[in-house]
């Protein structure tokens, strides 16, 4: 197992065509294609269908069978739209904003292991990098909000940034709890440590009696970091039109949404890697039925991590259509007076468990 770790990405990075490192480009392109495909299918179409079913509606039904082609039609429409830049907008920041935003969301995918055989870069500070690179997204949001020269956009940007910066603290402490259990920051090491024949019993969530606390804290904080409901006050339709992307149309709007869907998958993937075994199969070996061995391998690994990510995205969507939006003061109250103290408690309890009990 260990010998084949990162086998595909290593092989790709050695691949040269005509003296050019084509393999490196392919490695960078894989997450990009993945984000585009998943945002197109599951992200947009899935969210519309799921929200429709939760509200006892049908959702998109016109284009293709069950409206499957609806998203393609929407993309074609977005591509044809005129690229509008407001007269009074700050042209440079307005144009560069969505770009910075998407780069920030996409850079984190460099350390995301798509299965045991594929990872962009197996950094020994991978997890730290993944939660730190979000900082770039924050600057992109500010650039977009300020550049639009619009009250709603600036308000949305400032709310969004205040929220992301505040919720980074409980999120980082919760991740630190997972790091204490693993004793590493490398994404692939996290996965390897949670490998075993009993499947899900080896996951960190079930290895420690307090692990559910940082798991929940990180999930709640990650909702706020990706501006998802019930923390979507930065784009609150009823107060701010659409928040920091009020003025954006056409492809720029599509890029902003691609970035949002990208970071939604990224936080879900981090959650599943740190607490739920990443690309490891959750099925246990039961006697002669060696389910775990059958469902382990490079392709199965990619399947499991994508499925775990999709599951948490489903929960995010589910919450969006269930819970009402929080007010700004409730948001800050939850972050500083509830999540942060509980994160510290979880930190101390897990440290005690790791040192004295285990």
């Amino acid at each position: 197992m260990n010998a084949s770790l990162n086998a595909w990405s290593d092989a790709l990075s050695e691949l040269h065509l005509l003296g050019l490192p084509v393999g490196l480009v392919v490695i960078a392109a894989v997450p990009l294609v993945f984000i585009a495909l998943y945002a197109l299918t599951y992200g947009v179409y899935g969210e519309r269908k799921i929200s429709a079913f939760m509200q006892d509606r049908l959702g998109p039904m016109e284009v293709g069978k069950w409206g499957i082609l609806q998203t393609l039609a929407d993309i074609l429409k977005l591509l044809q739209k005129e690229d509008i830049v407001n007269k009074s907008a700050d042209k440079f920041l307005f144009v560069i904003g969505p770009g910075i935003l998407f780069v920030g969301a996409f850079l984190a995918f460099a350390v995301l292991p798509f299965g045991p055989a594929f990872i962009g870069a197996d950094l020994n500070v991978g997890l730290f990098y993944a939660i730190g690179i979000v900082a770039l997204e924050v600057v992109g949001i500010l650039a977009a909000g300020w550049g639009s020269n619009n009250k709603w956009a600036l308000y949305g940007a400032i709310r969004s940034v205040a929220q992301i910066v505040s919720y980074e603290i409980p999120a980082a402490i919760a991740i630190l709890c997972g790091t204490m259990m693993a004793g590493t920051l490398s994404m692939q090491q996290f996965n390897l440590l949670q490998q075993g024949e009993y499947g899900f019993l080896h996951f960190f969530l079930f290895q420690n009696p307090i692990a559910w606390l940082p798991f929940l804290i990180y999930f709640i904080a990650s909702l706020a970091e990706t501006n998802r409901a019930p923390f979507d006050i930065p784009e609150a339709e009823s107060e701010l039109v659409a928040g920091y992307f009020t003025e954006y149309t056409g492809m720029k709007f599509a890029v902003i949404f691609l970035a949002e869907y990208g970071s939604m998958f990224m936080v879900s993937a981090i959650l599943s890697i740190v607490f739920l075994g990443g690309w490891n199969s959750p099925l246990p070996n039961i006697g002669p039925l060696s389910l775990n061995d059958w469902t382990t391998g490079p392709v199965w690994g990619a399947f499991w991590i994508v499925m775990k990510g999709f599951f948490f995205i489903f929960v995010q969507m589910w919450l969006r259509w269930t819970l009402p939006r929080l007010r700004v003061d409730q948001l800050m109250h939850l972050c500083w007076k509830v999540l942060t103290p509980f994160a510290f408690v979880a930190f101390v309890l897990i440290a005690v468990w790791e040192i004295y009990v285990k």
Partner: protein
Amino acid sequence: MTDITYTVIFYLFAAITVFSAAFVVFSKNIVYSAFSLLFTFFGVAALYVFLSADFIAVTQVIVYVGGILVLLLFGVMFTNKIMMTELKTDVLNIVPGVLLLVAITGGLIYTFLARADWFTSDNRLQGSVVERIGFETMSRYVLPFEMISILLLLALIGAAFLARFDKPRKMNEK
């Protein structure tokens, strides 16, 4: 990757750092200066990676981009009439300025070339430095570490105290 690729990438990041830093100083628009600082910080982080200090590089991104730059942008954006303020980026006092520049640059180059005792380590840095940073902070440097944390806590309490909504005085003023 070959050495030539490394060299090209290194000079690319060095150029990004230097040019964006120059833009920060020479730009007449303070918002652009603040956004340009983003590229300076990223360039410096990339240069840390070339020094095999990946932990420091990521910390640089988190602290400078995620913390200081965002705070700076907030300050700039919340300040009214910031676009109207005339920024002075003219060259004033040329003679003392050039003298100071030559003196500082000369001193730095002299220190780099003559005084500094550069040496190449016999054993290359192996594996992860994160564990070693942790061990060193918690053993040899635990006192400075704790002192800094107390200083930061004091700054935090002071900031909260200054920003606190002062109820009785507000009432009196009305």
